[in-house]
């Protein structure tokens, strides 16, 4: 099947399984939102930050859902690009996306939101990028899919949608368009 990965590339991929179908995906995202409510309501000192580019559709969903539960409540929500902090820029050149943090993170509780947690290197870079913007009182990690047993750094999620086992030659793709689902597919080098 041929799928368009936006600006990244157009690639042929072999879809193996659906990890979460549309209904499960919505339920999982809503559960994550409710867990965030449990720990952070009324969100006074909390800010949510989606990691560019693929964490943002997930964080957009969560923020939209939280706003629908608490209409009128102001949520602090930003986007963070980590390109310049990556440790693999010598191997592959990444073109940056937008960083938009319209608030100070100083002494706030920050929830980083991403789609898939794999080696942990993205989150390491995200923490470096985040700390260059100030000193939050606490940083938490909210992940839709955790590819467990594949971490290369000591990083674990605080909120996890679904933990899966996968091979190094596979990839996880979170789709949040009309055909919303999470799929596992073959990605041989």
């Amino acid at each position, binding site marked *: 099947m041929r799928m368009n990965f936006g*600006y990244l590339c157009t690639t042929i991929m072999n879809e193996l399984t659906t990890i979460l179908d549309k209904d499960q995906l919505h339920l999982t995202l809503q559960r994550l939102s409710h867990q965030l409510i449990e720990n952070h309501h009324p969100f006074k000192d909390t800010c949510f930050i989606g990691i560019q580019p693929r964490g943002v559709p997930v964080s957009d969903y969560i923020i939209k859902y939280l706003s629908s539960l608490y209409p009128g409540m102001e949520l602090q929500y930003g986007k963070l*690009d980590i*390109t*310049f*902090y*990556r440790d693999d*820029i*010598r191997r*592959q*050149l990444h*073109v*940056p*996306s*937008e*960083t*938009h943090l319209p608030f100070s993170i100083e002494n706030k509780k920050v929830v980083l939101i991403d789609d898939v947690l794999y080696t942990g290197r993205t989150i390491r870079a995200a923490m*470096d*990028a985040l700390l*260059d*913007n*100030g000193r939050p009182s606490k940083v938490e990690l909210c992940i839709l899919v955790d590819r467990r047993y594949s971490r290369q750094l000591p990083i674990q999620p605080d909120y996890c949608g679904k933990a899966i086992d996968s091979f190094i030659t596979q990839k996880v793709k979170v789709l949040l368009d009309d055909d919303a689902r999470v799929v596992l597919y073959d990605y041989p080098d």
Partner: protein
Amino acid sequence: MQLSTKHLLGIRDLSPQDIRIILDTATQFKEVLQRPIKKVPSLRDVTIVNLFYENSTRTRISFELAEKRLSADTINFTSSGSSVSKGETLLDTVNNILSMKVDMVVMRHSASGAPHFLSRHIPAVIVNAGDGINEHPTQALLDALSIQEKLGSLEGRRVAIIGDIMHSRVALSNIHLLKKMGAEVMVAGPPTLIPKHIKAAFDIKVEHDVKKALAWCEVANVLRIQLERQNQVLFSSLREYNLAYGITRKLLDGLDHEVLIMHPGPINRGVELDSDVADSGQSIILDQVENGVAVRMAVLYLLSGKRDNT
């Protein structure tokens, strides 16, 4: 996605896609420069030498700042006070510096083509910071970013480059870039300072009446009269140049639209540009300088990935 060239020798070698990547990346670096910590670790394993064989204030400081903001290690070299005065050749100087494990060379030289020559003989990545009367690519890129920020896009915009076109590397780089990005270009100035065949070579407009040029354009990029490069009398006096070709408040007030005023610096105040115009709200000269750091960060960042392919 990456640049199609290994070095930045001139805008001539870049594709429109390359230019877009550089400008988009620069926009993100501008955001970095607004942060409390204006520094990213991207180039922390890269060593860059700034080779300046010609005087420079803005470009050198801007490059140096860009390198520091990217966490690169930098060495500065200026020809005065070096072994160049003992007769060492350019290639020998650079090879000696490179044997100390330098990855990238930022270079300004009074001879056109000097960086091109070096790029054929050394393995490091070369960024041209101005070579003679040939090109000054980062200046054109920062000019493009400044126009894009103010007007939204470059396509279809009318840009007049006014002044000493003949001796200006800024003009040549700007013409290449603006044409590639679909802008309309006019050069204006005294006939003696405009190359004879420029109209046919680049398919651009040529105008000798500054008033008409200003009436036509949305952006006026005013260039410095480069007295140091002129070896013959091309106009009678600076005073006369100012009267005939200088941009004055009176000229701009006579127009029915507002023209953005740009200048690559250093300004000869009262010659090509009057003080009250240079310091007015429609001048974006200081925005250009600010964008310079972001654009140079983008160029160095995008080219730094190329050095391992040698």
